[in-house]
């Protein structure tokens, strides 16, 4: 021993290397990483749980690790952590679930372990990040039909609509997205929760994203007949017609879409024509042609969407006789669209021309 201490060794110290990032747990090597993290998640010490969650948030960006984590039984421990007393733990747990929910296997696991209810309990959390992450997680779960069905079954629609009135703008966008996906599955709950009134209010929001998403949600909610009736009753058509002249093309596209789905019924058509939707749409159609080149460069898809939905909306309005008279002047424009546009545009435009030029 004496000899050893006097001799020079390559080891500088016998102490373990210092923890470089104290906010993150040390990762075990290879396949031991996730089981160890799972054990740490169930630890009684707060700091251990927090560090494990922090590390997980980085690790799970790798899709391979997501499936491995679920196999280890991470979902169960996360479910427990959702009800943790510490705000950071709740926040990070929802973040981990959000990362998982971007993958199909993660969404399935969330549905399988009935995690929607515990996540939605965090909608009322006082920790803002936890709220944001829980909304994100729910939003990405709602992408699939199963997930949307699960959210509808959990009776979350009413709660989400309530949140639209009180939450911050970022969360509002997420909620609007979630509702958009959920209303593909079932609109009756949303209609019962008076979502139409809330969406109409949001049409006047200062952020264009929210305006566009609200218009899109109005389009979704008014696909069934009750929605159309409700839309006419709530008088959202004048607001939508005003939005047809919005500076943002997303908003224009979505409001044209909303008008398109409302104007299917007769009273919807009459109301739209009374509010001057035809003139606005004609202006939109022609204005978009002049700025075609510029917008084309920016985003082809969105532009074509504007025109697609516009043309569709025109088709709807052209069914009413008074609309037909006014729209007779845009036939050449539509003809040119039919000649130049893609296959979908061509189809839509020819339908529109057929409807406009229809004579009894």
């Amino acid at each position: 021993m004496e000899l050893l201490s006097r001799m020079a060794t390559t080891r500088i110290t016998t102490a373990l290397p210092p923890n470089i990032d104290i906010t993150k747990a040390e990762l075990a090597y290879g396949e031991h990483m996730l089981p160890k993290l799972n054990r740490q998640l169930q630890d009684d010490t707060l700091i251990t749980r927090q560090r494990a969650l922090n590390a997980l948030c980085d690790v799970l960006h790798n899709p391979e690790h997501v499936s491995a984590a679920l196999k280890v039984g991470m979902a169960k421990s996360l479910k427990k952590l959702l009800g943790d007393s510490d705000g950071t733990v709740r926040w990070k747990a929802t973040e981990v679930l959000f990362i998982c929910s971007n993958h199909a296997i993660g969404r399935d696991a969330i549905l399988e372990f009935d995690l929607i209810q515990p996540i939605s309990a965090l909608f009322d959390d006082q920790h803002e990040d936890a709220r944001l992450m829980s909304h994100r997680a729910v939003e990405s779960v709602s992408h699939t039909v199963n997930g949307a069905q699960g959210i509808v079954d959990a009776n979350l629609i009413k709660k989400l609509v309530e949140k639209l009135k009180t939450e911050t703008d970022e969360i509002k966008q997420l909620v609007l997205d979630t509702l958009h996906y959920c209303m593909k599955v079932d609109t009756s709950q949303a209609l019962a929760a008076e979502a139409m009134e809330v969406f109409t209010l949001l049409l006047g929001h200062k952020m264009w994203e929210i305006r566009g998403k609200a218009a899109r949600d109005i389009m979704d909610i008014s696909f069934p007949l009750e929605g159309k009736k409700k839309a006419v009753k709530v008088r959202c058509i004048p607001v939508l017609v005003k939005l047809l002249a919005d500076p943002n093309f997303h908003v224009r596209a979505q409001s044209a879409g909303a008008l398109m789905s409302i104007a299917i019924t007769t009273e919807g058509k009459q109301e739209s024509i009374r509010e001057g939707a035809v003139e606005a749409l004609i202006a939109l159609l022609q204005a978009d042609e002049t700025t075609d080149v510029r917008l084309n460069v920016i985003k082809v898809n969105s532009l074509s969407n504007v025109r697609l939905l516009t043309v569709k909306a025109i088709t709807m309005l052209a069914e009413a006789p008074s609309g037909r008279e006014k729209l007779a002047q845009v036939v050449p424009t539509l003809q040119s669209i039919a000649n130049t546009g893609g296959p979908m545009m061509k189809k839509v435009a020819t339908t529109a021309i057929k409807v406009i030029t229809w004579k009894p």
Partner: protein
Amino acid sequence: MYLGMAATAAKMPDQGGTYTFQSKPHEGPPAMKFRDPYQTTNGPALYGNIMYDRRIVRGNTYAQHVLPATVQPDPIEVQRQAEARRRILARKRATDQLRPRSAEPVEGRKHIDVQTELYLEEIKDRVEEADVECQTDAFLDRPPTPLFVPAKTGVDNTTQILDGELFDFDIEVKPILEVLVGKTIEQALMEVMEEEELANLRAQQRQFEELRHAELVETQRLEEQERRHCEEKQRRMAQQREVLAIEAETARKIAARAFAQNYLSDLVPSVFGALSENGYFYDPVAKDVEGNFVPWLLSRVKENMGHVLLSRVMVDELIRAVCDKRHDQAKKMKQETRARSRGDTEAAGPAPAAAAPIQLADSAVSVPPPPSSASPVDPLGPSIPNIETTPATDNTSADIPSIVESSDIPQ
């Protein structure tokens, strides 16, 4: 089947050697047209489990039945083997008997084992054991293994190392930094790629959704159109039906009007005829005269006539009474005259004639004729009370002729 049948002709050799089989060629039994459901034919089972069929060779055929050189085993060999067995058995029995044994125990006792060795030894069932305890130290962390240092050989030398010669931080830190940066970049790249992928997915989804919406709306539009057309058609049909219904109703009304006119033209005169026949139309004055005045008048007339009749009857009676008296007087006078004529005709003649009228006046007042004395000549005797007692309300038409009659008769 034929195999089984043939087995009847098989011949089992007595000695347990290989199985042999021989049979003369023969015809098989005639095939039955149908299967016998009751198995009436008594015969051997037509088939069996081939696992137990001796004719089937199982297992490795090489290892089976080493064929003896001769078919029949050598009797001498067999005998010799039996001899050897018997001998071994006898030897065993002999050695058993030759073993030294202790004498048989006396009656009522029995043998037990006794140690005869020099040193006594306790015989126990249990093996002796002793408890010994030992507590290991608690596990300690294993100290880091000291680096193996080979024994020093050779001669020590010294050399001067200047600052920076042995450890250059920039050089030493480079690989560590590379790892750190690499790891970070890797993580960041992964996240960016993930986000990009998600964004792409969403864009794709949105595009698909737009198309879906367009199609959905187109479907709904067509549905709505169809519904409107249907409604229009229904409305047209309803209108047409209504027009037809109105036309039919009008025709019915016209027909009814014509019929009613036709019917009523005869009805009014006949109704008035029937009503006037039944006396629904009358003059109130005439009816009053007829119903009230005339009966009253008649009753009063009858009363008056009754009075008249009564007075007449009374006058008649008076006249009669007078006449009777006169007649009697006349008779008497006649007789007197006759008698006078016989004797005295002049003195008696006028005196009875003067006395008669005075008597007549007296008798008319004082002597009313008794009803019983009513002569059969007088028909009015019983009718008088009748007339007087009849009430005024009696039928006028019945009374009038009776009055007339009764008034006629005495005259």
